[in-house]
């Protein structure tokens, strides 16, 4: 399954935008585990995900060709 990952804010400093080919990641909880494992610096951040431009509020199914944004705490205003 192909997932496009995009990052924002300070997360851009250690995760580049990229496409990954993975198997067995079927929901956003599984994605979080995967990405925290690959980028341990994420564990110290209260990041949020957006799946196909919807901010993820609770565990959500991921389908092929999904775009997942990894977003650090917001600091606009």
């Amino acid at each position, binding site marked *: 399954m192909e997932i496009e990952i995009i990052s*924002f*804010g*300070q997360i851009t400093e250690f995760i580049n935008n990229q496409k990954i080919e993975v198997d067995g990641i079927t929901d956003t909880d599984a994605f979080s585990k995967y990405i925290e494992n690959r980028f341990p610096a994420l564990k110290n951040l209260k990041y949020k995900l*957006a799946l196909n*431009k*919807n*901010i993820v509020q609770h565990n959500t199914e991921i389908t092929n060709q999904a775009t997942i*944004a990894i*977003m*650090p*705490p*917001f*600091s*606009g*205003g």
Partner: protein
Amino acid sequence: MSEKKIKNIFVNGPIAPAFIADSIAKHNSKTAIGGHSIFMGQVRKDEIDGKFVAAITYTAYEEVALEKMHQIREEIFEKYPLSCMHIYHSLGTVKAGEICLFVFASSVHRKPAILACSDVVDRLKVELPIWGKEIFEDETHQWKENI
């Protein structure tokens, strides 16, 4: 929401006082309005570990931010009897002393405008995917955090 028109809120660089004046002047023909409430965010020259913030560079997940702002807007209009509301947020670099946020709410009587303006500012800081990178005078940086 059958028909929704997503408004852009983003402007490149600082929000100029003249832009704000134009926005105020445009309400001259809206003669049902009795009160306008404005909030402006200004970049502070904060001192952090002996270094001063020279500017903040803003980035956003634009589409998601605009969609969310649209939703907040609709909720605010349901909550308060407003005549109109305008919101602008900078992207890119805004120097210390310059304006990075401009929220402008108007109503017949003053209370709804004041409450709506304050409410929107609170919400957009928490809910919009926007990030501020504080650039110090020596060109190092740190990522801003809304407390």
